[in-house]
């Protein structure tokens, strides 16, 4: 299908201590992954307001990824738990609005998991390529 070759726009909100460091490790290890991703660093995934996710979709994102520390390993104790609960509820809302819930993903990538990060991004880009660009937001606001 012709659509398979389009470049999705993916935004990732990542925490400084785990996922950002894991992505750094992927870089130091010279692993290769798809370039269709933009990272925004936050001190903790707990900092992520659901409005950030909405804003990202408003700006044209086809997929938003929230990635932080593994359960129990949050640098600030429990911030990742707040993030995950918020993500679960928001995803339910998105589903209710009829938006494909593959467009909002959550992952736990630690500072030692460079390989996991690279695989995750490649898998994510492939997955989003298989669904259409996210036009529903524009339709909702127009």
């Amino acid at each position, binding site marked *: 299908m012709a659509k398979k070759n389009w470049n999705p726009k993916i935004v990732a909100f990542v925490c400084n201590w785990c996922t950002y460091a894991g992505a750094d490790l992927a870089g130091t290890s010279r692993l290769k992954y798809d370039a269709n991703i933009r990272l925004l660093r936050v001190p903790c995934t707990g900092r992520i307001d659901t409005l950030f996710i909405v804003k990202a979709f408003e700006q044209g994102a086809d997929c938003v990824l929230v990635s932080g520390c593994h359960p129990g390993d949050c640098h*600030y104790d429990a911030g990742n738990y707040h993030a995950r609960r918020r993500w679960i509820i928001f995803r339910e809302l998105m589903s209710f609005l009829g938006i494909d819930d593959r467009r909002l993903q959550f992952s736990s990538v630690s500072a030692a998991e460079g390989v996991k990060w690279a695989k995750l991004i490649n898998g994510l880009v492939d997955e989003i390529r298989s669904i259409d660009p996210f036009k529903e937001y524009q339709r909702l606001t127009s």
Partner: protein
Amino acid sequence: MAKIGVFICHCGENIARTIDVDEVTDEVEEMGGVVVSTDYKYVCSDPGQEMIKETIQKHDLSGVVVAACSPRMHENTFRRACSSAGLNPYLCEMANIREHCSWVHTDEEEATQKAIDMVRIMVEKAKRNTELEPIMVPVTKRALVIGGGIAGIQAALDIANTGHEVVLVEKTPSIGGHMAQLSETFPTLDCSQCILTPRMVEVAQHPNIKLYVYAEVAEVNGYIGNFDVKVRQRAKFVIDDICTGCGDCLEACEPRSIPSEFDVGLSKRTALYVPFPQAVPNKPVIDNETCKLFTIAAEEGREKLKRSDCGECYEACPTKPNSIDFTQKDEYIDEKVGAIVVATGFDVMETSEIAEYGYGKYEDVITGLQFERLASASGPTAGEIKRPSDGNTPENIVFIQCVGSRDQAKGISYCSKICCMYTAKHTMLYKHKVHDGQAYVFYMDIRAGGKNYEEFTRRAIEEDGAIYLRGRVSRIYKEKDVLMVKGFDTISGMPVEIAADMVVLATAMKASPKTNELAQMLGVSFDKYSFLSEAHPKLRPVETATAGVFLAGACQAPKDIPDAVSQASGAAAKVAALFSQDLYEREPVVASVDENTCVACFFCLEACPYGAIERKEIKDRDGNLIKTVSFANEAVCQGCGVCVSVCRSNSADLAGFTDEQMFASIEAIWEQIEEKDVA
């Protein structure tokens, strides 16, 4: 009006090979608010930093963006450069176009576009930065060392010798760790306990060291310079202050039926025990999981202990008042410290985990650590090499290296580092004790990189006649009295079968159990093998990502004694540096609450993991209470931002990652945002 200066680094070829730096420089120059856009080969170098300083002053910049490596690498470098040029360091941002772009993407066009996007994001963020001043907090000049092995002992002594108090917590009844179990150490063949015990005694007698044995760290709160630690002192049922260490109770206790942890199961101990004769402190403890008084009471379902069940130790104790006290309970003690050194050491994989070599069923298939106990003069056989099954002297021993290590099928890809050396040592110890004995070693490689290590392994072969076979062992099975070892010698290209009297497996070195739980308590990362993560594998081997928590010894990665000691001294130096000042400078990435808009729901107070949010009363001029609002205490706040995202009235914000900055960053990802006047 914002005046941002952008510096794009080539990083030699690291960035420039994949990203068209000139195109990025040109595109960035067009971005709103950017007054200078320039590139340089190595921005972090001296001339590079000078260039930043000159540009700041020449153009009176209000902010700087360095597009280069990861901020985790050089954010401090560039912040210092800005500071020395008179620009507040927190007005400097970095765009990570190396680790997150040039190093991970291959398509030049895509990488260049991504780099432009990344710089645009950081320019918008930088425009909305505010000047921040570091927060100064007082430092408690006491250290906590977790683990009393050689690394913990070294760190404790080094810190104590700088004049600061150290709390050393060890979970077994004695300090010494695995080094105390060794017979002789490579490459000198020093008697391990002879070189260790003086240090152990020094720890016990040092006026600055507070030693807890048979204790664990139960809880850690706080942050660098101000940790609140709860130590759980397990009930020993022996009153240390009265006990003289005479040992009468040890003789009285029976049965001697519990596998000794110190002898790795090769001998038995009693429930009341001292782990080894040179233990420090040399006072016994009662293991309530095996002591008759406790086990019988538990079986009968009652809590109260009956003296009639046993009490031999109490009868035997000569002190007045008696040193045995069965009413003791676990105690929780609060300690305030400013720094923590983790030295929890390692464990070895057990033979039961290896199916090919008998699942641990063959008594004469033992681990390297168990062989140490056989060779040790204080061991179960008084230093004579004897088969655990029948007590006979083995006429030959097969040593197998890399058991578990370097074996993806066993889930361990790393090398355990010490096994080549201790196996060579074992062949020598064996030969020195059994002159006619023959040692065979199955190996994949010989890793003898340390000082005098290579010469040591050659000695085993040339002087002590050890036969080294390069190949693996596929199976060990028992045939009558001997163990048939089926292996291969790749140098001759022939299969090899040896009828062995004993087999010693150099099993993999693993992180000690419960390391994960401790790491989570401290906020330290660990890898999939549970080894604790250092802040940077090359340049920061003793620090962790959590400020104030340091690493020493094998808990970080497999290593030998000299490296453990070096690392421990390194950690101690870091602690000493921290304690050399009365105030510690903290990052001002902290939360603040707008009193005017706060609706006093106090969600932030509940959500804060550090208790940094307080209730603040707002009073009028006559002292009447108008309202109570939230207040973020900047000395306690760690800057996670959870309060900001739970705030219902948009009153909380996080310096350095404000809502405005975040939204502007998102807006700037794919296109230039509308130029609004940013003050």
